């Protein structure tokens, strides 16, 4: 028997569902593959619904709404036009053939158009064959162990941007100066009462660098600066602000040490009204790039230092805004200093996008397979601030509780989607992952899509956010 795809269609009740009726009344032929689900509006079809549909074995998902300008709710279809292309890029990057997800417009009178789109879509999906997405109960999608033929393995780990020894010495000298300045600055801020707390870095056990919270000027000497100051400390701002809130009458102010990337987080948090600019004091640091920080299991004293991937491409040495600046103003990018031969995240994402869906699918399944759903990536993300994560609800609405491949992938892709147009690429999610899953590649892919599609970059200014949910005319309508 030839393959007949299962196609789930979400039809807007005002236009497309009526359009389907019109097609029926006119006795136009449409393939019987369609499972139609009537929704109030194409804008109601959230990305989570689409993910869930594929998770449950759909071979294709068709979303039909009213033509632009004809939405019963004014702009629901414009929202769909913003979300679905980004979701498509995301699922494509994870290994789905993008042709399996289509958004189009059918009005109530367009029976013929409905019939045409459905036939065309069904033919496309039929030609693609059975979907490789859902893993459970689907041997064709099993996690592959044979990596020999797949160009992606190894590629994502290849950027060994080793720091030359003479640079290390130069950095060490600068670190000492920066450390002095940060301590002095923090101490003054606390003594004068301008801030209640300074969030910075200190040296912890096993020579690791870790976040430090300084509430008293006498403790300021704990603060340090070095190339292992990887944490994005803006994560802790709200907690520190709230903590002070409860104890003092005065409006609390918290100072935080930020690198250029961390400061972009501040722009997004301010855009989303998490706190006001007056409540924070930014101690900006001129950043020379951060090293890959590993666990301390090996007793390696001759450890070589390599830059984090995010730093290889980074052209921005200074934070865009700051209240105090530590270090000199304009510096060249690392690439300009011809320091770093390695491959950055952007080129990696580019390389991955060139591979086949099958190769990407195998790659990501093998990566997500290791996930233990510890949620460290989410917890380390300053922009994952929902009180209850959609993927951790008691009712298993969007994904089950299981620590298994389907659930894990849905969590990671769903989280990535929620960060589209918001993630500023600090890559802390990847750094904290105990299983070394290259999660940040997905975030960078979506950042590229946002730039290409909407000409939008997160964290460069205070601007309406999240871009995928607000309406400002950025969407491209066919």
């Amino acid at each position, binding site marked *: 028997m030839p393959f007949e795809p299962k196609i789930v269609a979400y039809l807007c009740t005002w236009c497309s569902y009526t359009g389907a009726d019109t097609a029926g009344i006119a006795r136009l032929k449409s393939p019987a593959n369609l499972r139609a689900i009537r929704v109030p509006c194409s804008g109601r079809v959230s990305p989570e619904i689409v993910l869930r549909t594929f998770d*449950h074995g759909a071979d294709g998902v068709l979303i039909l709404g009213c033509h632009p300008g004809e939405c019963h709710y004014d702009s629901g279809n414009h929202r769909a036009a913003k979300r679905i292309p980004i979701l498509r890029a995301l699922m494509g990057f994870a290994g789905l053939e993008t042709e399996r997800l289509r958004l189009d417009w059918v009005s109530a009178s367009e029976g013929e158009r409905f019939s045409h789109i459905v036939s065309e879509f069904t033919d496309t999906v039929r030609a693609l064959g059975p979907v490789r997405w859902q893993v459970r*109960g689907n041997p064709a999608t099993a996690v592959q162990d044979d990596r020999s033929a797949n160009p992606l*393995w190894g590629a994502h*780990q290849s950027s060994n941007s080793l720091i030359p020894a003479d640079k290390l010495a130069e950095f060490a000298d600068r670190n000492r100066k920066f450390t002095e300045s940060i301590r002095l600055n923090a101490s003054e801020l606390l003594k004068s009462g301008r801030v209640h707390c300074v969030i910075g870095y200190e040296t*912890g*056990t*096993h020579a*690791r*660098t*870790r*976040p*430090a*919270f300084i509430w008293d000027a006498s403790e300021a000497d704990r603060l340090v600066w070095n190339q292992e100051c990887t*944490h994005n400390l803006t*994560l*802790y701002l709200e*907690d520190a602000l709230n903590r002070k809130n409860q104890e003092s009458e005065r409006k609390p102010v918290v100072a935080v040490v930020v690198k250029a990337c961390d400061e972009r987080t501040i722009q997004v948090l301010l855009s989303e009204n998490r706190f006001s600019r007056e409540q924070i004091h930014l101690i900006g640091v001129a950043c020379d790039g951060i090293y890959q920080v590993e*666990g*301390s*299991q*090996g*007793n390696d004293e001759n450890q070589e230092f390599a830059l984090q991937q995010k730093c290889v491409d980074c052209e921005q040495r200074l934070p865009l805004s700051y209240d105090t600046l530590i270090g000199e103003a304009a510096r060249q990018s690392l690439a300009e200093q011809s320091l770093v031969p390695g491959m950055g995240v952007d080129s990696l994402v580019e390389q991955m996008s060139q591979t086949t869906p099958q190769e990407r699918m195998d790659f990501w399944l*093998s*990566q997500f397979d*290791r996930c*233990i*759903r*510890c*949620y*460290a990536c*989410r*917890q*380390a993300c300053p922009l994952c601030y929902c009180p*209850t994560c959609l993927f*951790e609800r*008691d009712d*298993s609405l969007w994904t*089950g*509780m*299981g*620590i*298994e491949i389907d659930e894990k992938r849905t969590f990671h892709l769903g989280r990535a989607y929620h960060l589209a147009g918001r993630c500023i690429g600090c890559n*802390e999610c990847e*750094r*904290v992952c*105990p*299983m*070394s899953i290259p999660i940040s590649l997905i975030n960078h892919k979506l950042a590229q899509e946002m730039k290409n599609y909407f000409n939008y970059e997160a964290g460069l200014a205070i601007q309406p956010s999240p871009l995928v949910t607000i309406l400002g005319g950025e969407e491209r309508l066919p």
Partner: protein
Amino acid sequence: MIANNHEPHLWFITQEELRNWLESITDHATLIAPQNFDGIVLFKPTSDVNEIDWGNSRAAMSIKEAFFPPTEQLMVIKRRGAEVKVTEKLFKEKQVIFSARPCDARGMKVLDSVFITTEPEDSYYSKRRANTTLIGLTCQQMGATCFCTSMGGSPSNPDDMDIMLTAYNGGYLLQIVSEKGRELVTGVNLQPTTIAVEIEDEIGRAPTPQIGDWPPRFADDYWEELAERCLSCRICAYVCPTCRCFDVRDEALPNDDGWQQFERIRCWDSCTSEGYRRIAGGHNPRDTKAKRLKNRVFCKFYFYPQQYNPVACTGCGRCIDACPVNIDITELLQHLTEVVYANRA
């Protein structure tokens, strides 16, 4: 061949013979061994001995997974009209774990007290435990974050294994520890030996307060300070060989020939996560990071020992390595010990 109970307990096996032996094990049992996945060493089933990671480094996850999987289907429930069928899913296979480390094996003893020794017995866990043989491997060297010797363990302790291996002269010294171990080596070509290898135990890395010293520390401000940087993720609990909390839920499966289908699953959970202690009505008695972090530490060193003894930490040091914000349990214990002594003085 092992013939009677009077034979020596120490044998020598060459690397080659060990490989052959492990290969023969895959014929009748699932072999679980450390393997390298993109730089991460994990215990996973394998049918190919060539995949095994023979290095000395400790795996990123403990062997707990083999007995208490991250997700376990407990039963399948089917319903059609008034008819209901329930099928329990008990573990029936045999498994052999190769290269288990003493800290992990000791961790299983900690779980045994909870799941087996204490009524009612957890049949899911106990079946897996009974069907699994542990081939241990002596650690050549304690890692930078290891502190098993402070928790009463040792890198060469064979007590909780079925068979213990110690690398020696290109091969391994093999010690048969239990009856299960004896069964597994039946037919293997072993040469008796009397060689003993000394592994240097480093001591005193983490002084630990006595059990009675813990309750007064419950109200310390220290927990708030320590938890300021805590992410409230679950890494420490999930990499821990003794953390054993879980959640149980019924989830729908696709219908099967007119039958509605559901599965009852249990999944790892952790007291370090925010929703763990939330109760009906929305109240959360452990609503801050500090309370949650404190609970995990108290569970290891006070709540668990009170009920089962000894402490529920084996000093494997994984949580120290994996914590993204350097919450170091040895630093914490050191601090508390100092406070205890200061208060006594």
